[in-house]
């Protein structure tokens, strides 16, 4: 294929926890994707993810017209042609799936983001979590380890809850102590897990005021869809998620790649 005919656009989102690659064709259709733990060698992980996503799409690296990287490790991707912040990419990706004025609510491995967009998809403002990682995926990972519950079981456990156990502390470590205290008092694990979900949601919702339409993205939502239902119930807002919430930033990056 000649350079002129290159028609594939790649977005790479190197997050603190996971690396995501999205491959789009010229019609902005997602034709390949891949997700792996970011590990310590971001460039190598990005390479492996790219190969896997290209295999899925049935194309080769020669077909790639342009690549944009984003996320915490965005400047460590050797095959990238440029970078954009994850805030910009999540906004772009969310607007691609839901072209409307909205609040994007992204819960990632270490970062939470709240991004407000107008009906043209332009950013009005954004906020990220302050100072610590309470209310992010790292909080749930720590709790799953402390409670010895596989992280992938948390969503189904939370759904079984009949009486939520609320946690008071901001601090992840102190929350763990509080959880142990609840267990000692005979509280049920599903109720505690739902309480952990509620803690995540509270940390996020207290960051800013939500607009009427909310789009939730990120790995935590991808693996714990019950969180979306809970946000819907608590906020009373129209809350949606893309088909692959964890890929939203990578898709946004690929869309930026199409700009030039």
């Amino acid at each position, binding site marked *: 294929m000649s350079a002129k005919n290159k028609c594939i656009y790649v977005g790479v989102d190197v997050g603190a926890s996971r690396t995501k690659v999205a491959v789009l064709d010229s019609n902005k259709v997602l034709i390949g994707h891949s997700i792996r733990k970011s590990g310590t060698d971001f460039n190598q992980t990005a390479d492996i993810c790219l190969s896997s996503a290209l295999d899925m799409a049935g194309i080769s690296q020669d077909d790639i017209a342009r690549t944009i*990287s984003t996320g*915490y490790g*965005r*400047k*460590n*991707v*050797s*095959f*990238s*042609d*440029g*970078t*954009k*912040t*994850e*805030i*910009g990419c999540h906004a772009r990706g969310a607007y691609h799936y839901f072209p409307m004025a909205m609040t994007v609510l992204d819960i990632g491995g270490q*970062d939470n983001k709240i991004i407000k967009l107008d009906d043209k998809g*332009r*950013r*009005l*403002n*954004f906020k*990220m979590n*302050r*100072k610590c990682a309470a209310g992010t995926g790292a909080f749930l990972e720590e709790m799953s380890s402390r409670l010895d519950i596989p992280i992938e079981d948390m969503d189904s456990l939370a759904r079984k809850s009949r009486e939520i156990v609320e946690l008071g502390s901001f601090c992840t470590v102190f929350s763990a102590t509080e959880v142990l205290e609840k267990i000692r008092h005979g509280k049920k694990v599903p109720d505690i897990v739902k309480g952990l979900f509620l803690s995540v949601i509270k940390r996020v919702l207290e960051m800013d005021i939500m607009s009427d339409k909310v789009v939730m993205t990120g790995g935590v939502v991808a693996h714990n869809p019950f969180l979306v239902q809970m946000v819907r119930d608590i906020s009373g807002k129209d809350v949606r998620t893309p088909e692959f919430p964890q890929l939203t930033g990578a898709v946004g990056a690929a869309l930026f790649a199409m700009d030039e």
Partner: protein
Amino acid sequence: MSEEKKADRKQFASGKLLKKIMADHFYELDEASRTGSKKIAWCTSVGPAELLRGMGFLVYFPENHGAMLGSTRMATELIPSANAIGYSPDICSYLTSDIGSYLQKKTPLKAAYNIESVPKPDVLVYNTNQCRDVKDWFNWYADEFKAPVMGIHTHRELGDIKGYQISDIAKQIEELVPGLEKVTGKKLDIDQFKETVGYSRRTSELWRGCLESASAIPSPWTFFDATIHMGPAVVARGTKEAVEYYEVLLAELNDRIKNGVGAIENERHRIYWDGMPVWGKLRALSDQFTSLNTCVVASTYCNSWIFDQLDPKEPFESMGRAYLELFIVRDEAFKEKYMKDCFEKYKFTGIIFHDAKTCPNNSNNRYGLPERLSRHFGIPQLTINGDLNDMRCYSEEQAKTNIEAFIEQLDERA
């Protein structure tokens, strides 16, 4: 591989003179400290320096030392020593790093000027207009050095300033005189005092001129340049040398304006910075904004050393006014109006607030001001969480990403 664009900062010819003034300041203090040739007064950054200098003291500013501890990134290692003796990590990190520096016998003066330690005080004089922490800070050293400590206690949360409030501060300043005379062993020479006030006034006028030169488009300098060049406005105000320095600097800035030379190549965005500098990351932040073709044109912080209310004809009264009309002691309504005036002057397109963990008095984002200003101007605002000196409170990657995303947002609006 994508790489950050290399930052190209423009140097100032007046930088050499700046270095000389700062070096002379510390050498003179060190000599006096070692030989007792002159009396030394420690003074808070917005304390009554004119009176002290006018009475023949050499004046040392611990906050300036605090900023040096921050910018040399020594502070974070020193703070725990002060924490250990009971000074909380949540209070002023100038205080904790400075006391930690004393306890650990480490000072940036050693590497910069081969000076072993800060000068010993003969007297310590504070003004609580900055915060209450300065009083505790000076009290600790007064006890350590067995030196007298005295101070001015300011009014706070001021809207319109009343005559009685100014008179009160003026009276408090005047009441320092007998105690200071006891230290110097000499009577106040009113003419020397007035001359000092005159130099300080002139320094302030020139400093204001320098800061306001940033209203030019493109701006001839940045907030980061100003934080360095404000040194003499802090430590040498009230001297002829400071006046001469700012004459040179202002001429250089005006020359840049005349020749259309901007501090930032292809200045695309203009930002207002509220709050303290992140001293330990000053260079990194300056480089980031430069690489994003963004000029931080103005700041509340650098404006805080403009005292052009000073009047040699009424030295006490005018000092009372100058040190009471400061931004930091004013109420929210004044602060909001002040920033609106700055917006008109500097034509910025975004505002960044630095929420300094250990400096609530200089963190103006905590009562809804960013949101109110953003709504009023129709421009975006961003809050960066960090600290002036304690880098444990600053997550660099988070801050960098926030700033980069903020500039992307400004790009979308352009």
